């Protein structure tokens, strides 16, 4: 019974913790402009993150090392250093977007301007990291984030033309009003939103935080293979809500306040309250993960003691890194930069940086010296190689498409 409860909790946490500000914004923007014609990218992205998270979790559990410890060992300090610089920068951009997302969500609940919420949000993130146990932190935000299931409920309550939605989803082509370059730009953005590098840093380091061993691999597999796809369904639900309400009206999503309007249309103030709570939880949870990832990556590369399982005094530089990262995020946001714009850039640059973490994990997952008999099987490797090609293609195309389309405008 206890085991079943732990498995259920893990899956529910994975569902609720799947979405972050990148998924919320990107799926809503895409739904309002392309309908469900990019839903296939969410499927591709979810399968990819399942594969990636499953590999990195297995590597951490079997080898006893987290991502950047392995990257440094395997690639050597120089190559790993370049990898670190790029991954850390993208992670910092994502952290900035998440803290901004918390502030925007709190504005919806309070009418208080986001710039006033930004330092409060960052302080709250730091305080939770400082004082709260890892498992409590992960489970609470994941479970509260489950309220975002209201998007899926809203799709039904809106009474859409299911035939039209199915046609959009099954016809993966740019609508007449949008060009192919913009279509593929947003395909990469959606892919980047589903496969953000911080998820893997957090997942593998979290495996060390919770002292996973081989016995925990089954549960990790259940969390990932059940939780993430169900979380992916919520992503498609967000796009569907935007497609049903905004696409016919010629409204293009560019703010968080627009994202909640379809939910209010479907379910009134109760649904609105649930979605705001869910967005706060999702962005807060993601801010915790990205802040921790900034500490994990730097500390693991430089060989500093790291982890919440250590008292802060014993991992001072790990905690200092996170404080500095949060301060940088606050400083950037206080320049009045639009957090939605930061989010849109962060998901694209996530796609650019993805090969830097994917390739080392793939290499180590096949290395018997680290993995013993737990190396990738043939099916996993076949899928992993397909994804390597997809990830490399997305990474190479992202910036040229960003330039050519004016960042999707």
């Amino acid at each position, binding site marked *: 019974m206890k085991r079943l409860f732990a498995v259920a909790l893990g899956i529910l946490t994975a569902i609720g913790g799947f979405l972050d500000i990148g998924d919320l914004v990107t799926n809503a923007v895409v739904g309002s402009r392309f309908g469900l014609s990019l839903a296939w990218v969410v499927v591709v992205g979810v399968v990819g993150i399942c594969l990636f998270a499953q590999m990195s979790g297995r590597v951490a559990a079997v080898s006893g090392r987290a991502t950047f410890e392995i990257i440094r060992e395997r690639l050597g300090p120089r190559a790993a250093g370049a990898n670190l610089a790029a991954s850390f920068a993208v992670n910092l951009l994502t952290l900035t977007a998440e803290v901004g997302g918390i502030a925007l969500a709190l*504005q*919806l*609940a*309070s*009418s208080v301007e986001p710039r006033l919420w930004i330092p409060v949000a960052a302080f709250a993130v730091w305080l939770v990291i400082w004082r709260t146990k890892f498992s409590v932190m992960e489970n609470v935000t994941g479970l509260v984030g489950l309220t975002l299931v209201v998007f899926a409920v809203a799709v039904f309550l809106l009474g859409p033309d299911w035939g039209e939605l199915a046609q959009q989803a099954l016809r993966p082509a740019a609508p007449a009003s949008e060009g192919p370059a913009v279509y593929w730009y947003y395909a990469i953005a959606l892919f980047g939103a589903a496969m953000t590098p911080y998820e893997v840093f957090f997942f593998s380091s979290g495996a060390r935080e919770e002292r996973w061993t081989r016995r925990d691999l089954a549960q990790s597999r259940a969390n990932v293979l059940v939780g993430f796809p169900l979380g992916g369904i919520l992503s498609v639900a967000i796009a569907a809500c935007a497609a049903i*309400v*905004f696409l016919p*009206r*010629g*409204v*293009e999503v*560019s*703010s968080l*306040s*627009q994202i*909640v*309007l379809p939910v*209010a*249309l479907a379910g*009134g*103030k109760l649904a*609105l309250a649930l979605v*705001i709570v869910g967005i706060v939880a999702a962005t807060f949870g993601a801010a915790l993960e990205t802040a921790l990832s900034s500490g994990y990556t730097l500390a693991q590369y430089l060989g500093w003691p790291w982890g919440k399982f250590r008292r802060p005094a014993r991992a001072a530089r790990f905690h200092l890194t996170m404080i500095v990262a949060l301060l940088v995020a606050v400083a950037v946001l206080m320049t009045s930069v639009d957090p939605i714009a930061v989010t849109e850039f962060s998901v694209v640059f996530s796609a650019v940086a993805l090969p830097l973490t994917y390739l080392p994990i793939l290499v180590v997952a096949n290395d018997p010296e680290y993995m013993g008999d737990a190396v990738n099987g043939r099916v996993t490797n076949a899928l992993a190689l397909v994804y390597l090609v997809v990830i490399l293609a997305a990474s190479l195309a992202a910036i040229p498409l960003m330039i050519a389309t004016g960042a999707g*405008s």
Partner: protein
Amino acid sequence: MIHRGVRATRVAAATVLVTALAGCSLGPASAPDAADPRLVDALDEATSAVGTATLAADLLDEGRLTATVADTALLDALRVVGEADDALTTLVPPDPSAAQHRDEALRAVGTATDAVVAARGWANGVEGDHAVVSAGLDGAASALDALTTRLEGSS
């Protein structure tokens, strides 16, 4: 062999450059009666803002939205319509016909701005009622739609 390779690279680069410059010479400046796509983009932005404002106002009137969220949505819509206005005011039309199109677009976006401002005033309990606000937003949307259709038809 190396010299041939270098020469081929130079020819290819020159070809790309000429093609790119030729591409620059095409477009609105070389087709005076065609509407500048930037005008249509700005009108689309304003249309999107008016659509959001209309939805937010309707939901607030029906009691399905809180005043806080409605105000935030309307403020965001004002920001978008402001960006559309900025895009138009900074546009330098290449000829009198384009200037006329630009002025019409500015008037339509100005009407949209007034309608969204009025909606926000009503949402904050300052003035007006939903019927008047709704009529204003519908009027702005119709004006934007009519102008967009006319400009797209001329390009």
